[in-house]
């Protein structure tokens, strides 16, 4: 395995692993706060039980997220010293801000998890709110640093060195808004549907369980609105990619020839050699409409660009299709849920809806992985779009396959353990009979 590929693979594994825990760190605190607030308002003990169970799950996931995030902050230098030497001074600021946000999150999560009987209920709820806010903030700061890699700003490159550095302009780079909105919504949608999906699945076997019903409602209150807003944010993102990274857009859409009134290519297998996409569905005018909101707009194709500047087209195209398909499914299920909620104030109701929600449980996270594949692989061969090539940023250290395998094994091990612990904590341990005697309005209709 060449060292560059090993370094990229190690980074990919580290990011793909960490993003799950980072997303949970953004989404779960909101759910804990919703449940705790409902408990304080209604006195319903189920909500307290929910808040406590969810905070236990969050504790496990946050710890793994904290340590895997540390790995990433080191890996930037261990694997990409050339990148950090150029970029550190330009995009250090969002990382510093993220450092403080993460600090705040860790402090108040400690207080939240261990402070149930050490501080007042009001202070406890506020600690949860502080975790939720700082979790979202730290995600936003990190994503601005990534969006800078897609649309670098705030410096001039003179003889390979960055001058006239303006860290604020770098942080508020042209794609920062689109990417941070898209990722924050994704975090809420993925967490909401993962939690809601698990409880929907359990309700299929235990339809009267009040615990799962409350959990499902609270989780969808977070996940469904985010999933419904996500297509709008996706449109914003796609148009900014079309404007700033035309090669990435062309790869996402498997669009080889520059043309006006470009069709949208759905599915299929792109072949970069022949410039054809086999077995794809083509929707006339679709791509021009989506990318520029004009059916006759000219969309530049891959063939307009030198071959050495192309990303891996099949991977980027497939990643994009998967993300859009999964996101669309979640948005449609959310619309269904919202419609029923508006009419009947009850999301549980039919078994078909429960099945649809349960099916969505892994989809938000899969969509996030697919979406980050599009963002990162689609930017290749650049580590900073148009400024620095990934191959020029990699460490001179040989034998990088060793740390790649080491971290892959470590993360596989941790992934299995975390899944097992969560299964014990959240899925197996709530005794279903515990809350099933509680009267639940709406059960009779089920």
């Amino acid at each position, binding site marked *: 395995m060449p060292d560059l590929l090993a370094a990229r693979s190690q980074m990919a594994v580290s990011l793909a692993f960490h993003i799950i825990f980072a997303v949970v760190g953004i989404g779960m605190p909101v759910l804990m706060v919703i449940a705790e607030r409902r408990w304080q308002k209604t006195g319903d003990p189920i909500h307290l039980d929910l808040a*406590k169970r969810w905070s236990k799950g969050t504790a496990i996931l946050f710890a793994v997220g904290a340590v895997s995030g*540390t*790995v990433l902050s080191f890996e930037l230098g261990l694997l990409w010293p050339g990148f950090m030497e150029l970029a550190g*001074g330009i995009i250090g*600021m969002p990382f510093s801000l993220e450092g*403080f946000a993460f600090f705040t999150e860790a*402090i108040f999560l400690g207080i939240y998890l261990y402070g149930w009987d050490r501080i007042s209920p009001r202070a406890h709820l506020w600690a949860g709110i502080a975790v939720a806010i700082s979790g979202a903030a730290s995600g936003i700061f990190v994503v601005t640093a990534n969006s800078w890699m897609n649309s670098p700003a705030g410096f001039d490159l003179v003889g390979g060195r960055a001058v006239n*550095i303006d860290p604020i302009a770098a942080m508020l780079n042209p794609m920062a808004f689109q990417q941070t909105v898209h990722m924050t919504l994704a975090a809420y949608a993925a967490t909401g549907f993962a939690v809601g999906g698990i409880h929907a699945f359990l309700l299929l076997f235990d339809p009267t369980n009040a615990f799962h019903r409350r959990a499902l409602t609270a989780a969808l209150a977070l996940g469904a609105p985010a999933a419904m807003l996500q297509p709008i944010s996706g449109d914003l993102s796609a148009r900014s990619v079309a404007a700033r990274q035309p090669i990435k857009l062309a790869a996402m859409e498997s669009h080889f020839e520059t043309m006006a009134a470009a069709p949208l290519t759905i599915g299929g297998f792109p072949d970069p050699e022949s410039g054809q996409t086999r077995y794809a569905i083509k929707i006339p005018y679709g791509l021009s409409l989506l990318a520029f909101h004009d059916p006759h707009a000219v969309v530049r194709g891959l063939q307009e660009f030198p071959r050495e500047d192309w990303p891996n087209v099949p991977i980027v195209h497939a990643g994009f299709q998967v993300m859009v398909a999964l996101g669309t499914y979640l948005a449609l299920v959310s619309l269904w849920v919202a419609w029923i909620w508006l009419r009947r104030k009850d999301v549980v109701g039919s078994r078909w809806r429960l099945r649809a929600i349960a099916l969505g449980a892994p989809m938000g996270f899969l969509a996030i992985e697919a979406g980050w594949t599009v963002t990162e692989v689609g930017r290749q061969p650049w580590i900073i779009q148009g400024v620095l090539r990934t191959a020029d940023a990699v*460490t001179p*250290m040989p034998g990088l396959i060793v740390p790649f395998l080491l971290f892959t094994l470590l993360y596989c091990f941790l992934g299995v353990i975390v899944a097992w612990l969560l299964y014990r904590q959240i899925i197996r341990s709530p005794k279903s009979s515990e809350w099933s005697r509680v009267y639940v309005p709406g059960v009779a209709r089920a």
Partner: protein
Amino acid sequence: MLPVPELDLADVLAAVLALSLNAYVLFAGADFGGGVWDLLASGPRRNRQREVIAHAIGPIWEANHVWLILAIVLTFSCFPPVYARLGTVLHIPLTLMLVGIVLRGSAFTFRTYDSQHDAAQRRWGRIFSSASVITPILLGVSIGAVASGRVGGDTQGSFVQRFVEPWLTLFGLSVGLLTLVLFAFLAAVFLTLESVDRELCEDFRRRALACGVVVFFASALVLLLSPQSAPLVRGGLMDSPWALPLHLLTAVAAISVLAALWSRRYRLARLAVALQVSLIFWGWAMAQYPFLLPPNFTIRNTAAPESTLRLTLIVLAIGGLILLPSLWYLFQVFKTTPADPAGLPAEKSAARNEPSSF
């Protein structure tokens, strides 16, 4: 007496960087040290010792850990070439240290939330405590490599010459040992305040006293090896105008720790040990000044442009306004009254899903 150097922005940021590392050493160092005492738990109260340790670090270790992230972020924002060089030359020890950090944190959390059966508890406990031993050694080895001038020097030649010899030295290992022993010392002293149980306090007091003696020998070993291996830092520590006052103050702190432990004045011991460890840390940092990675990487020749430094300082000021009160609150909630895990109210154990016994 002390010469007042011309401080500029880069110096201020280097000082903040050193301060956050100092905080990491004090707070996270004690957490790692807790892991060492978990490994070395012995005697009739060994399970309760482990309980006190778990109880002491549970709410705070993640927050304490962030000091390292802050130091890393400051390094790559303000001194990017230093960060690039560290990541290249120290690739191997830093990678291994990361594995240690990952295993320590996850195993500790898994132990808290996994089944309370002895087998599961022992398994996670063993990973947690051995990672707590290895990680500080690797941190110390990396610091020793920096101090010896092998990271900032010219590295040419074979794989071993470029990526192994800079850090795998007797001196580096001695600094690793000293780091481990200092962390264990910090933890033992802090743990005397973590339980209301007199016997447990005595356990940790005896450990702290013994460890204080080991600290002396480990420091002596590092000093003995330093003229050959780290001449620049050694020179700074011996010949600077601040050297004598620093050594005297460190000696006073060290003796105060032992005296306070002897007379069971644990709060005084906690203060003195924090001072002692900080003075040792600052001795290294000041002896290196103005180098970040001797002999080629200075604060000034690696600093990011003025605009970045100024903004970072503003971010630090604003962040500090949020961070310091929050940290104070965290320690206020958990560290003002010593806990007695054995006597926790039942409801509390249920709330935390804590083991009632390990």
